């Protein structure tokens, strides 16, 4: 088994953000996690990347419980498990290539970091990755000078620079317009297909999950309430996940261009 999540729980004081999440992943697929705000999606991804400590449970990746790792082992795991954030989380004052090179920090010594010494091979590879994502010409600019969609692609480039086994994406398109959202989702899908990496993305729109993912996990109030293929994700099931009333319409959760076209203006 590639990834085995068992009984993962996170409590913040009296509030249980994630409760007893359990699922298996046999081979690298693209998984979408959906659920309304506060369902615990971000908390779960952050526990996988070890930005947040879990309260209970195990996450076994190739039979190693990554929730138990400490210090350097934990950081080594983080370098294997890239994370993409809704707000990009780049260093705004530094140039694009430097931001991509940050993906290699786990392998770099602190001294090399101090003097900004990245090997030439890495610099070339960073630019190649930017080129693959179609933003090579932005290479020397400061990250803060880029549009949101471009910044998110820099963040994806940083993730690829890590050469990770898993890519986690926490609502990667939530702060982007529909055009850029599509570019970013296409990039993630391509990375999954071409490199065979496991991708887990939190998505807040149903149609994105349906369109890009091989498997969809629905969360509600910290629990997994749906786990299946996009085809199994009917409107009734979706209504259940989002806890919405009968007036629930799919277009209401949509940011895709086609869906917008469907809504009468």
């Amino acid at each position, binding site marked *: 088994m590639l990834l085995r999540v068992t009984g993962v729980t996170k409590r913040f004081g009296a509030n249980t953000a994630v409760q007893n999440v359990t699922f298996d992943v046999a081979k690298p697929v693209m998984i979408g996690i959906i659920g309304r705000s506060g369902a615990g999606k971000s908390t779960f991804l952050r526990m996988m990347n070890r930005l947040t400590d879990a309260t209970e449970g195990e996450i076994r990746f190739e039979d190693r419980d990554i929730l138990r790792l400490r210090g350097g082992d934990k950081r080594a795991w983080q370098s294997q498990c890239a994370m993409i954030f809704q707000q990009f989380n*780049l260093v705004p004052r530094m140039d694009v290539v430097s931001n991509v090179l940050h993906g290699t920090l786990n392998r770099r010594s602190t001294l090399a970091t101090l003097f900004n010494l990245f090997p030439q091979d890495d610099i070339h590879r960073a630019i190649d990755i930017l080129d693959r994502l179609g933003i090579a010409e932005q290479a020397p600019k400061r990250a803060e000078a880029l549009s949101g969609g471009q910044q998110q692609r820099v963040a994806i480039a940083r993730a690829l620079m890590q050469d990770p086994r898993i890519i986690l994406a926490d609502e990667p398109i939530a702060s982007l317009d529909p055009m850029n959202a599509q570019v970013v989702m296409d990039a993630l899908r391509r990375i999954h297909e071409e490199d065979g990496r496991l991708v887990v993305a939190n998505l807040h729109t149903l149609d994105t999950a349906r369109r890009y993912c091989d498997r969809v996990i629905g969360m509600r109030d910290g629990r997994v309430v749906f786990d299946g293929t996009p085809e199994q994700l009917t409107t009734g099931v979706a209504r259940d996940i989002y806890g919405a009333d009968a007036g629930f319409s799919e277009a209401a959760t949509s940011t895709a261009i086609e869906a917008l076209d469907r809504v009468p203006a």
Partner: protein
Amino acid sequence: MAELTAAPHPGNGIDPIRAEYMALTRRKRLYGGLTLLVFVLLMLSGFTLADSRNAGGFWDGLHRIFDFPAQVLGEAWDKIDLMPAHLVKFFPALIETINIAAVSTLVGAMLAIVLSLLSTRGLARFPALIPLFRRIMDVMRAVPEIVIALVLIFILGGGPVPAMIAIAFHTAGALGKLFSEVNENASLKPVEGLESVGANWTQRMLLGVVPQVAPNYLSYGLLRFEINIRASAILGFVGAGGIGYELKNAMSWGQGKFDEAAAIFLLLFGAIVVFDQVSSHFRNKLTHGGGA
């Protein structure tokens, strides 16, 4: 969970919030007023105390304050022809003073960066030890340079090294406090981004925090440098070398040396004006120009 996500009830939900906020505002204003009152009282009592302790009274001695500069100016004017030679003679001592200030500002600022990062919530390497590092900075800031310098001169003997250590020590505490306030305003997003790739603490601070706060650090550092030139000159009085030492000699062996004292004052004044101008120029650039 259910209470958290339940829809708010307008009407009865908003009133308690308003009332609570108004109460909070009133309390803040009350505290503000009390603080002002305490401040005024302290000023008044401090002034009357100083006035009563002053032998012969503050007001009686006031006119004598102007006797000293008058005498210095008088002597200097009489020997105005020697002034250029004096300026040249004491210039190396001025350089030494500035040197002491520069080295101790640099060393102190580097210490301050580390201490401030260790004592900022959200950034600290050991969150449990934040109070400890804060207290360390408080102590460093509270001890005046001259006290440390006197102790060190007693142990190590005179010279620039005790002065450097003393000023660097105080600077680390003073800048550390300011730096940690700057750090509080730094965005944690880049830091989290770096954490997610497996970067260690030093790497996160160097790449995630320092680029954000560097202009502010530099601006406070320049301000501190100016202060440290003065501190370094004063420490010369207690045997730490530099222009302060020369000034002490010129003044205490008095008789006929006030022309030298005037030259030294002139040098010191010039240096402080120059650095004040230079640093305010750069600080303006840093805060308004948005950096390089």
